[in-house]
Structures are given as C-alpha cells and as structure tokens.
C-alpha cells in the first residue's frame, strides 16, 4: 500500500480514538450516575409504600404487598438495565474492533486485584458473625459477592479497547461495589454510601469529558 494510504489510515485511527475516548468516558459517566440513583429510587419506593400503607388498609387494597414490591423493584432494575444497554453495546463493539492496535493487556493484574477484594469480602463474613451480628444468610451473601464481582468485570469492558484509562474513581466505584453490595444485605446504609460513590464517579467522569482530560 502506498504511503498516502498509510497516512490516511493513521489519521483516521487518530480521529476514531479522539472521538471514541470521549464518548466512552461520557457513556461510563452516565452509567455510574444512572445506577448511583438506583438505591435512592428503591428508598423512594419504600417510603411511598410506608406513606400509603394507612390509605391501603382503609381501602382494603394490597398494592404494596411484598410480592408486588419485589415485582416493582425488578421492573425498576429492568428499566435501568435497558438504559445501560446502549453504553455496554458501544463499549463491547469498540473492544472487539480490528482497528485497535495497542491493547492494554494487563488483565491478569485486574483479575488479581478483583480476586483479592472478592476473597477479603467473603472472609469478612465470619468476622461479622463473630462480632455478634445475627445475620446468617450465607446463602445470600456469597451469591451477592459473586454477582458484584461479575458486575465489576463487566464494567471492565469499557477499558478493554484502551481508548480510556481507568482512573481512581473507576477503581473506587468498582471496589466499593464488590465490598458494599454484599455488606448492604446486613447494613442497609451501605446502599447509600454506594450510591454516593457511584454518583461521585459519574460526576468526575463527566467533568473529565468537559475538561477534555
């Protein structure tokens, strides 16, 4: 191929990288912000169900019965997952692109870090029980840790292309998710801390896009 074609391909790759690095970071920021509001949405749902419990008992309605609450929570989660779909489909397509030359290949390090966080979170459980916490639903705790770890690995899709760099707030958001999501089954306030951390990560990501960092 002639040098003209090489130059054309070089310029096109630079252009793609410039546009996609910002769009991926923007998508990541919106994703953090979106899921950061999930615990707030669920808390609002519980508050509504509490406020309306008196009216319900007067009218003999069972709108906020436990199964119905579960269905509403799942419906909200489905809406959030649907809204996240676009971000992940873009990240996935980019990560499989043949135009990426310099892939960042330090996946083993991510595996090691994530595994350490996961094992530590699991190891914390007997300590919590030993400290007098009566919570003994091991059957819920372990799947929650595994689920949170899977989410963290799925989030890594955004970084596979190497178009965006993982910042401290990305590590903070994902590590806190692995630790706090299972712990929130025992201590509910964990959900709100998680919410704050994810909203912070989202805001920082969007600021990065605005500042062109």
């Amino acid at each position: 191929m002639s040098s003209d074609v090489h130059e054309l391909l070089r310029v096109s790759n630079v252009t793609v990288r410039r546009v996609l690095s910002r769009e991926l970071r923007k998508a990541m920021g919106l994703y953090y912000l979106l899921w950061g509001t999930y615990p707030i949405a669920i808390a609002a749902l519980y508050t509504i169900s509490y406020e309306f419990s008196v009216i319900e008992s007067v009218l003999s309605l069972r709108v906020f019965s436990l199964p119905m609450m579960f269905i509403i929570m799942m419906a909200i989660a489905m809406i959030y997952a649907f809204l996240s779909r676009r971000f992940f489909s873009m990240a996935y397509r980019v990560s499989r692109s043949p135009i990426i030359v310099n892939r960042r290949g330090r996946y083993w390090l991510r595996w090691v870090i994530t595994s350490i966080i996961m094992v530590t979170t699991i190891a914390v459980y007997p300590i919590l029980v030993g400290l007098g916490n009566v919570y003994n639903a091991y059957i819920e705790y372990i799947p929650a840790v595994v689920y949170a770890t899977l989410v963290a690995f799925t989030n890594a899709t955004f970084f596979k292309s190497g178009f965006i760099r993982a910042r401290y707030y990305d590590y903070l958001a994902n590590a806190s998710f692995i630790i706090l999501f299972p712990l929130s089954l025992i201590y509910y306030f964990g959900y709100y801390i998680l919410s704050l951390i994810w909203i912070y990560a989202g805001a920082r990501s969007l600021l990065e896009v605005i500042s062109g960092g």
Partner: protein
Amino acid sequence: MVDEVDELIRMLKDEALSSGVRLGILIALYYIDGYVTFADLQRDLDIPKSSLHQHLSMLQENGLVEFKRGITPLGVRTVVKITNKGKGIVSRYLELVRALR
C-alpha cells in the same frame, strides 16, 4: 489477500473516504450507533467549524451520514448520525482490515 488490498484501496479512493478525518468520523459514528452533536465532534477533533462542516457535508452528499438540527437533552443542537449505507461501508471496511491483520 491481494483482492482484499485492492478492494480496500478502491474503497479509500472514493471521494467521501479519501480523507482520514472523514473515514475516522464515519468509523466512530458506526461504533457509537447514535446521534453525536456537531459541537462535541468539533471539540473532540479540535478542527475549525468550517472544516468539520465541509467533511460532514461531503459524507452527507454521499448518503453516509444524516446531518440535521435535532432535540437533545441540552436543547436544540446540530446532530450527526450514520446511515444504513454508511454502516454497510464501515462494516465492509472493518472486515477487510480484519482479514488483512
């Protein structure tokens, strides 16, 4: 292999794709698969408005992108989106690049 190289060179000789910036914009729009505002593109590429407008007009004349005023969460903005024809061309381009690697 030779056929693929020939086809790639033929494709890149097309007036619409003969510029690296236009090819890059088209590939980026293919991956985004949605609207991107003109202002965002200009900020990403750091080129004058007139140059970007010229590139996008060329792509639009060849039916590769849609380029119009649209409603966005930030208000009415000029937005750009890849067309089905554009997607087909980028898809073929990426197949050729994959085959050559």
